[in-house]
């Protein structure tokens, strides 16, 4: 949710927006590659609060820089990923999370895909079953005879394929 927001906004809303020159600075990185990798993936989940739809990993805003440093400080201090997120949310609110939490308020958000797939699947299944019953009803003797007559008249069976 990053710079395209700016491009799209610029294009569609015709608002002026400065293009960030880039995000993570060489000096910010941690020496430990494993820790740095965790910092990067956490950064991708945190919103740059002053930007339009950018994660702090992609933004060069001052606030994003501060948050990146903060995340790395917490990680260096031995926090788990969840602890880091809790810490940031405690400071900035849930708005900072690009992936909303599982809770009652977000139940519809997270539940919709599952719910629709289950309900939709059930409808399709039920529809298929009722159709099958209908389809498998036997023809009466009279209808059978009529069918045979028509088939004979045409000389051959159904057209191939189609």
């Amino acid at each position, binding site marked *: *949710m*990053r*710079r*395209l*927001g*700016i*491009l*799209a*906004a*610029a*294009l*569609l*809303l*015709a*608002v*002026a*927006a*400065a*293009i960030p*020159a*880039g*995000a993570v*600075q*060489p000096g910010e*990185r941690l020496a430990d590659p494993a820790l740095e990798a965790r910092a990067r993936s956490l950064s*991708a*989940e945190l*919103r740059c609060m002053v930007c*339009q*739809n950018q*994660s702090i990993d*992609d933004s060069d805003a001052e606030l994003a820089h501060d948050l990146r440093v903060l995340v790395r400080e917490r990680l260096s201090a031995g926090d788990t990923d969840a602890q880091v997120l809790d810490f940031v949310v405690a400071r900035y*609110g*849930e*708005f*900072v*999370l*690009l*992936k*909303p939490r599982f809770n009652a*308020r*977000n139940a*519809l*958000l997270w539940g*919709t*895909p599952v719910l*629709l*797939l289950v309900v*939709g*699947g059930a409808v*399709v*299944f039920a529809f298929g079953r009722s*159709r*099958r019953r*209908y*389809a498998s009803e036997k023809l009466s003797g009279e209808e059978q005879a009529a069918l045979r007559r028509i088939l004979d008249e045409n000389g051959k069976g159904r*057209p*191939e*394929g*189609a």
Partner: protein
Amino acid sequence: MIVETGHFALVLAFALALVQSVVPLVGARTGEARLMAAGGPVAIAGFALTALAFAALTAAYVQSDFSVANVWQNSHSLKPMLYKVTGTWGNHEGSMLLWVVILAFFGALVAVFGRNLPATLRANVLAVQGWIGAAFLLFVLATSNPFVRLEPAPFEGRDLNPILQDIGLAIHPPLLYLGYVGFSISFSFAVAALIEGRIDAAWARWVRPWTLAAWVFLTGGIAMGSYWAYYELGWGGFWFWDPVENASFMPWLAGTALLHSAIVMEKRSALKIWTILLAILTFSLSLLGTFLVRSGVLTSVHAFATDPTRGVFILGILVVFIGGSLALFALRAGSLTAGGLFHPISREGALVLNNLFLTTATATVLVGTLYPLVVEAISGDKISVGAPFFNLTFGPLMLPLLLLIPFGPLLAWKRGDVFAVAQRLMAAFGGALLAVLATLLLVDGASVFAALGIGIAVWMVLGALTDLAQKSALGAVPLGVAARRFAGLPRSVFGTALAHMGMGLSVLGIVATVAFEVEHITVMKPGETTEIAGRTLRFEGVAPVQGPNFTETQARFVLMQGGVSRGALISSKRIYTARQMPTTEAGILTRGLSQLYVSLGDETGDGGMVVRIWWKPLVTLIWLGGAVMMAGGAVSLTDRRLRVGAPSRRTRPSAVPSGAKA
């Protein structure tokens, strides 16, 4: 004078749209042939008038007529001619005018090509087009008039947003709108069918090609927008799950579902009611996208609340059209007859499954896009729904769909044999397995997930090829016969295979880029080299360059491999003079299907420069796959069935040795 002519033409077009909304409809109701016949010429004249208005605005841009407020706000006399022209739609008012022009264009196409449609259907379709046209023309005239004059006229304009001064602006919005607005035809046909209370073979034959055409354009528009963002924004991302992107992606997903259900309807006259509903929903999502983007509601609910004129107007259009058409659907759907029967395991069944996954995916994107707005409106809390959410929900929904794609075209209509199809797909499966193993063995640090992703992409591509091979009976008959059969396959079979193959190629590009991309952020001084993905990049130096309306610092890099130069690239930073606005222009070097992407950061003071370098393997496949999908749609549009398929004629059994034979 030109500007006033344009303005006047637009008002006339609105008046004609009102005529188009009422007269053919009354004609169809009363059976008055002359009233029905009025629809065609009125639609064509309406298109001519809106096109004239658009040409007038373009002329004002070309001449840099700053007495027009819209031109003054978005143009500059020093701007290159291309961007003067494209700047016409690089702003709210102009782009809404483009929207209306394209709508009128499609209306005129129905009028011209629809001469052999049943008269009442044609009249009703044109009337519905007239309603949409009237609503949006009124919107433009009342809230977004591009022809407003300034007095006194300023000397110089304020320039177009530099990010938009790119060839992308020439291609992306027109393509996107051709897709977006093109779905209005399927919508109008659906509403017309509901008004008439019946769907016949003519209806089905008409809807599919129009949907397909709109889909081809929308695919192109989205792919082009993605590539534009990729090279223009200096970060190298290709999809961002931004609400504005989602706004165009939702109609694409629903449109793809519509395309597939329309096939069932055309071939087997089943799924009629569902197809009608999808046609309504698809265009409703186009309208919703227009609302989201145009009302400013995305930037902030509060911004929307403070200047709600435009937003409320579009919201009104939205409510009337979506609510009205759904209400009509609820009233009339019962009177439509259900169609043919089929076994769950059949081509129809596979297409139903396709629809299930695609509509669920559409709903997921819809809920994710609107949820923050709804939560804020209800509780005042602000939450964000971003890329991590969509990746986690949309991805798993697509996975089964992608896996099942190769089965669909090989299954027979009515009743298929899934085991027989699986047997035919053994070779494709073997190829995919090989790809998985090769990825694990040959690529350093490849995860199992990445390898499986590559495998799925290869499976889709080989599955599409298997379809073609099976339908030309390759291996079962002598080679010459198979070649003749191959050449004789209907275009729609090639279209399907190409579209599915294109999807596979895009997936391959996405997986390879996401999984195997190498990023390197460093500080470089002129003359220094750095290593990336087994290649050496040398920073040659910087040079100032004066552009027409910007100044630029160009940095030159040379890519070396084994001591040999493999090409040079220029990455630069620009300052646009009029707005004093900086932009980065990424340097991109394409090697085969992969790209080296270099973006400049800040200067460090001691002559060094922060440089971000990415090696993006197979990245071009993401968009080439989109181009292949478009080609598939285009080839399918040239199918004999569609060219000669005059709706009045009876459906002849197609000579496709499709399902039953394959």
